[in-house]
């Protein structure tokens, strides 16, 4: 008892000031960050070096089962599957990041502009968004690819066109909420210029929320891009991409089922990593849960 009485009370646990440190402390955040970093290194490494040349056929070694030299086997033209997955990582992960960066920036700009400008600008931008939202994103994507023809750049363009409106809508709603928050009203009354209020008070909060959505969507984006490539509308042969690899391997499922393992695991891990980070971000930013 006396011992207990002498003990100093524990300092109350205060959340950390910096978002990255809080993310690191969150168990699923740390797991997601580690996995994501690993995948990123994997993709960067794949861009400069692979154990075997990823695109050069070696017909003597076609459809070999997993071995030490080819841990995930070889495909129908004898190319090493592991090297193909490594090489494809930059296209799968890179293009998902690129698409998200684009929809994030477009959505942020359009949403804040329309939330704060109101009036005719708001009406014009939001009707545009409504048109984009009225069509199912996959159908819209197919339509644009049908118009422009298959190819990685066209695919990215199609996904951006299909997705930006969600972000713009959310950014608009968030900035509408932010403009009447007490700290914004206080700044306005203090005479802080408009652009500084937008830049300092409104933009960071909206960007953070939108960033959480983007992280949560990273996994979906990878699967969407892989899906289009699977259908042959994205990355064109001989280049490797995870979805395209699945599509090629599918033909040999009966005789070489192991070919499906490496690209499927790669897609699974990248979606998992994105979701883990997204869950942690959501926990940190809205502790009461949504």
């Amino acid at each position, binding site marked *: *008892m006396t011992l207990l009485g002498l*003990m100093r*009370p524990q300092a109350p646990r205060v*959340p950390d000031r910096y978002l990255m440190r809080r993310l690191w402390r969150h168990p699923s955040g740390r797991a997601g960050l580690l996995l994501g970093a690993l995948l990123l290194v994997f993709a960067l490494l794949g861009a400069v070096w692979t154990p075997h040349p990823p695109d050069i056929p070696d017909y003597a070694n076609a459809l070999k089962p997993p071995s030490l030299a080819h841990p995930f086997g070889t495909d129908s033209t004898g190319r090493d599957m592991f090297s193909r997955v490594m090489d494809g990582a930059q296209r799968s992960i890179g293009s998902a990041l690129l698409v998200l960066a684009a929809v994030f920036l477009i959505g942020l700009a359009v949403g804040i502009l329309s939330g704060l400008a109101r009036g005719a600008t708001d009406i014009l931008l939001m009707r545009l968004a409504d048109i984009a939202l009225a069509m199912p994103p996959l159908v819209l994507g197919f339509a644009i690819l049908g118009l422009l023809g298959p190819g990685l750049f066209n695919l990215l363009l199609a996904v951006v066109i299909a997705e930006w409106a969600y972000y713009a809508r959310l950014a608009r709603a968030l900035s509408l909420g932010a403009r009447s928050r007490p700290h914004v009203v206080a*700044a306005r*009354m*203090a*005479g*802080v210029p408009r652009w500084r209020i937008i830049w300092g008070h409104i933009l960071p909060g909206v960007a953070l929320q939108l960033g959480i959505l983007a992280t949560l969507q990273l996994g979906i984006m990878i699967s969407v891009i892989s899906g289009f490539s699977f259908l042959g509308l994205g990355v064109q042969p001989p280049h490797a991409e995870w979805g395209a690899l699945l599509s090629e391997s599918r033909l040999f499922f009966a005789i070489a089922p192991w070919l499906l393992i490496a690209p499927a695991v790669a897609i699974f891990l990248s979606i998992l990593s994105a979701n883990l980070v997204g869950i942690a971000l959501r926990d940190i930013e809205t502790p009461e849960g949504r």
Partner: protein
Amino acid sequence: MGAVLSCEDLTVSYPNGAVPVRGVSFSLAAGACFALVGGSGAGKSTLARALSGLHRRSTRVSGRLMLDGTDMSAATAAQWRAARGRRIGFVAQNPWASCDPLRQVRDHVAEAWRCHGCEIGWHDIATRLEGLGVAQAGERMGQYPHAWSGGMLQRASIAAAGAHGPPILIADEPTSALDADRAQSVLEVLRSLGAAVVLISHDIGLVLRNADRVGVLHNGRLVEEGSPAMLTRAPVHAETQRLLSALAPLPPRARPRQERPLLRLSNVSVCYAKGRVTALAGANLEIAAGQIVGVQGPSGCGKSTLLRVAMGIEPPSSGQLWRDKALGGAGAILPVFQDPVSSLVPHWSILRSLCEPLTVPGRPRLPRARRLARARAALAQVGLGAMDPHARPFELSHGQCQRVALARAILAEPAMIVADEPTSALDSPSTWRVSQVLRAAADRGTAVLIVSHDTAFLERLADRVVTLEAGQTIPAAAP
């Protein structure tokens, strides 16, 4: 008279190692009132829960606790359940929070009998409620809690707590949801049951008026105990002195040098939703430079709307709003909002939030070091000198955020400060400090318009108090 409640060396420890109550000993004579006072986090509520056996199972309580002649130190949950209601009654802090909004008030009172397997008729409940000063109890007790005022609902809670005539009542901040007048009458009702009362409160003035003995809790220890007269005459411990400082009179008002009116609202009305909702219906208000005007009134009477009209962010639907040229420029009117946490930019350090009004165009450009020095000085003024100025708002308590928001308004030296409930999250010493700061600002010529439901705070601070009711100002009787 023997002691009905006594505890010796009572210590409460949580599983995480925190020890919120350490070695508290006191005894309570039958029918007496023992008050426990202390700042937030002193361990008052934890002690109250330990005294009524409401602590969690994982919480360790050691020491001796005698309740009405029985040793409850090692009582089981079932023993506590039998004791609660019959030998010890509990009155909680917020009457609305402790009532289920979907059940009628009479059900809450009857529960006190039913849970001990007794029956009581509605008529008896009505009689008891009327005895505690609830008018038309027979009809009103069929209503739901939201239709009752805080003071009335707290009386119903007291009726339930005193159902079986327990010799001891534990009341944890029973008046914190009430304004000053109602607080006093609720306490009188509480005493009228004749039970010994352990009263927990942060309102030191109320405690000194009502308690027979007062104990001061600080960091979980009972640092001083004595009669109210003794404590006020010669407080020994620093914490007691700090708590008592809240009762010191404010320095005399330097006479306003000028009676130059700044803002005049005459017969102002505000309607929302195309005239279906009337928030203000003919409000009149005048405020001069260096004047402090308080606005009081029940919830929903239009206080906040009145402030928004005065700030100029809500145009009146009808009536006249006249503002002096001095209020025209940017930054001439600075607000202090009710919600303390969202008044500060969530991702900024409080220092940056504090300095922002100093950096607007049109103000003389101060060097960064000067700005920071002034911000620190303003923090010290509101009693936050020891705080890390780089902290983010979410690291602060509500009371601290509230004081930072006030410091921001003071720092920029506007022509008028408009404050909505600036002390709702503060304890009495901090409230006193804030009053001093506002008074000093007014002495420098700033007009201060304050809305508060803390009548005592307004009466002490303001030069004039305006009462709003149903959107109309009631002409104040000359003080």
